[in-house]
């Protein structure tokens, strides 16, 4: 039961951080492009990749704390529902280019960021092990 409370508490922090990022980063660069959600999703993808191959692999923190940070904090910081609704809103406003770019950049950029974090984390982990 305690792990649920930990995940929930970390989820509060993740959701609030995402809310603030979305307020601070105005839609810009391209008319209507949801830069706030996009930024949170890219940052979160990188950080979760790094966290998984480095911090989780090092096993220096208790498993419930690792779950709380990975699933609760980082998982709640990023969002898929807002991404989906924003894409439909762009399509309904006739902003086809922005909608296409949003989906494409989320798909490819998210994998790139997660992959980058994954490899960077693994490198740091191996350095830490050999040191």
């Amino acid at each position, binding site marked *: 039961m305690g792990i649920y409370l930990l995940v929930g508490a970390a989820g*509060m922090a993740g*959701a*609030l951080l995402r809310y603030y990022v979305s307020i601070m980063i105005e839609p810009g660069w391209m008319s209507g492009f949801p830069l706030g959600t996009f930024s949170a*999703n890219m940052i979160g993808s990188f950080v979760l990749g790094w966290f998984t191959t480095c911090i989780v692999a090092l096993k220096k923190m208790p498993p419930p704390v690792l779950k709380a940070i990975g699933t609760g904090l980082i998982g709640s910081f990023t969002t898929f529902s807002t991404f989906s609704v924003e894409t439909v809103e762009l399509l309904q406003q006739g902003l086809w280019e922005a909608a296409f770019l949003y989906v494409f950049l989320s798909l490819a950029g998210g994998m790139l960021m997660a992959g980058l974090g994954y490899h960077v984390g693994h490198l740091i982990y191996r350095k830490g092990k050999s040191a």
Partner: protein
Amino acid sequence: MILNSVLVLIGGFFGAVSRFGVSQWMNPRFSSAFPVATLAVNLSGAFLLGLLVGSGIGEMWLRLLGTGFMGAFTTFSTFKLENIELLAEKKWKLLIGYLAASYIGGVFLAFIGMTIGLL
């Protein structure tokens, strides 16, 4: 601002707990390489957020149930990490299927939700 933050905090707590609960319940029951739990929360969350936005509920409800609950219930980072894991294991078909189901399904279900919400 402060009230909105509190609403996002409360929603975020229950959203994260619910997502964790779904994954705890589903993962032992579907021991496949396909990440069913993440797909289930992301698709149902996209539909439900569409429903909320479409129905035009007020700003406060949107912060509590939308930004807070649905935002935390669904996840992008875990989805992308699972993409990378499928890629690393060279499970191409699963990866393509996961990407297609998530993006096409998510946008389609959000659209259906928003349309029903307008009724």
